[in-house]
């Protein structure tokens, strides 16, 4: 590295490469921002869902207090571990709720993102600027496949902290039993770590669906959402005509199959243990098989298929001529 100082002639072309990379990154940032301007549901819907959870927490304490105080368990057996477990369950539930909302929003987003620009004819405006079709399609995947899932993870973490604070305040005011909920930063971090890996796994596993939706979006002349549902219709047709469910089994597997791999087919010690006493969610670290999930052949086959679908969508956007 020190040779750069002695020989500036060598340093010049080396500096030129990051400059063009920096420009490409700047373009990608502008493109991703654009997605959130156009598709406001991407951030409005998760925020609204998180807001609703907070509102429920603020006003539902009467019911919670009623249920928990009536429950006999809380008197004798409700210790630190249970209080901590309840906090981690909330942590997980908040994330799951926001993720379900996100799944709907992203489905609509991916189906619409390459269709809307043709419908409102703004595609010629976008194409009048020096942005490649590859970078354009990449920006949709970055927005919907990276920024939103990790944004939702962050939003879920913040929402959970707010909820715990509200419950703690209720407890301090005597509206909820003292010691109902507890906080442990290490436990919290361990659960966030689980969710973080889960988000990465979910993104990778769902890439072929993302690619399929993008391809539908770029090819549909009208009603892309209907075309996106074609696999379900075919599965129904198969069942009606042949009384078999091969396609449905495949669709079902492609939608959630990896979670079964992660959870060892549902055979979790955690589940057995919670029948006797509550365990904080981070106990799943010993149970979940991330190694098996991330080395799953179908996961990476899906990624390869997704690459093909995204490439096809890019080529079609490049050469499609709707005249």
């Amino acid at each position, binding site marked *: 590295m020190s040779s750069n100082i002695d020989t500036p002639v060598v340093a010049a072309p080396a500096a030129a490469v990051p400059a063009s990379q920096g*420009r490409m990154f*700047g*373009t990608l*940032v*502008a*493109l991703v*921002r*654009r997605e959130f*301007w*156009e598709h406001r549901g991407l951030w409005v819907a998760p925020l609204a869902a998180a807001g609703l959870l907070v509102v429920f927490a603020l006003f539902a304490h009467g019911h919670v207090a009623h249920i928990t105080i009536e429950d006999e368990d809380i008197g004798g057996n409700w210790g630190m571990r249970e209080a901590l477990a309840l906090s981690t369950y909330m942590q997980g539930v908040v994330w799951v709720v926001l993720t379900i909302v996100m799944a709907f929003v992203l489905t609509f987003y991916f189906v619409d993102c390459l269709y809307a*620009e043709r419908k*409102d*004819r*703004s595609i*010629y*405006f976008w*194409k*009048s*600027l*020096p*942005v*490649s079709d590859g970078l354009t399609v990449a920006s949709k995947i970055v927005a919907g496949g990276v920024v939103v899932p990790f944004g939702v993870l962050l939003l879920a973490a913040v929402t959970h902290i707010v909820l715990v604070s509200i419950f703690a305040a209720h407890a301090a005011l005597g509206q909820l039993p003292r010691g109902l909920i507890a906080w442990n930063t290490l436990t919290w971090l361990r659960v966030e770590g689980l969710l973080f890996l889960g988000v990465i796994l979910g993104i990778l596993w769902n890439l072929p669906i993302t690619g399929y939706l993008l391809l539908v979006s770029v090819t549909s002349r009208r009603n892309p959402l209907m075309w996106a549902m074609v696999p379900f219709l075919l599965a129904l047709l198969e069942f009606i005509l042949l009384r078999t469910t091969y396609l449905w089994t495949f669709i079902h597997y492609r939608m959630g199959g990896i979670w079964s791999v992660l959870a060892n087919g549902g055979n979790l010690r955690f589940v057995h243990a919670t029948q006797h006493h509550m365990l904080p969610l981070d106990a799943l670290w010993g149970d979940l098989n991330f190694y098996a999930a991330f080395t799953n052949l179908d996961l990476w086959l899906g990624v390869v298929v997704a690459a093909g679908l995204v490439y096809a969508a890019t080529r079609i956007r*490049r*050469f499609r*001529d709707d*005249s």
Partner: protein
Amino acid sequence: MTAVIEARGLAKSYGNTRALEGVSFTVEPGRIVGLIGPNGAGKTTALKAILGLTSFDGQLQVLGRDPRAQRDALMQQVCFMADVAVLPRWIRVREALDYVEGVHPRFDRRIAEGFLAKTDIRMSSRVRQLSKGMVTQLHLALILAIDARLLVLDEPTLGLDLLYRRKFYDTLLNDYYDKERTILLTTHQVEEVENLFTDVIFISHGHVTLEASVEDLASRYQQLTVSAERAASARALKPFYEREVFGRVAMFYEGRSAAELGTLGELRTPSIADLFVAKMQGAPS
């Protein structure tokens, strides 16, 4: 100087319809070229080929690049505005500036803001809240701020009232055009912009029927207006088109001298619009 656009044998078919059949033309730098033709003549297809928006056969170089293979690099030097290339209705004026600034290395935001300050357009407005004339002004503001070498305009003022149209072309000529820049323009309102052109290309049924600079037109084409009784002797000089106007006859000639025609009647250079009609209606040369 190398040509800005060099087209040789451009061909394109949509199914059985042949939009372009062996079109060749050259556009030199610093010119304002009118691409003129009736609907369905192949104008838009030719522009799409130039912009790399469609596949085609034949040879085409734009600023020394192949628009099929090097579209992304090309678009740093080429600006495009069309009646069909509408700004998205959801975008805010400020967002449009942010976006173009983010993706275009040759965009100067101050120029766009300076131009918009002279209009009634507010930065916080969405495109859907603007009138069609204002949307065109916004698009023009973006284009003025991009330091491009070739500007392609496809019916840019369609559906605008006269005032907006006049302002549009005045701005283009005064604030944008210079000897380094080339403008390629199609429009139906030829009469309105014909004194803007330095060159014209007539295109009809997928063929180029005329390619000339405006100076060349003056020496190549003559329009002679004669009274009805002189029509026969004027017709003897073989006009390629004639048209009756208020009892007199306008005859259109190619390659006749003023000495031959001047004695018969009133002689002048045909307007581009008249010449276009004459070439379209007249017998194929």
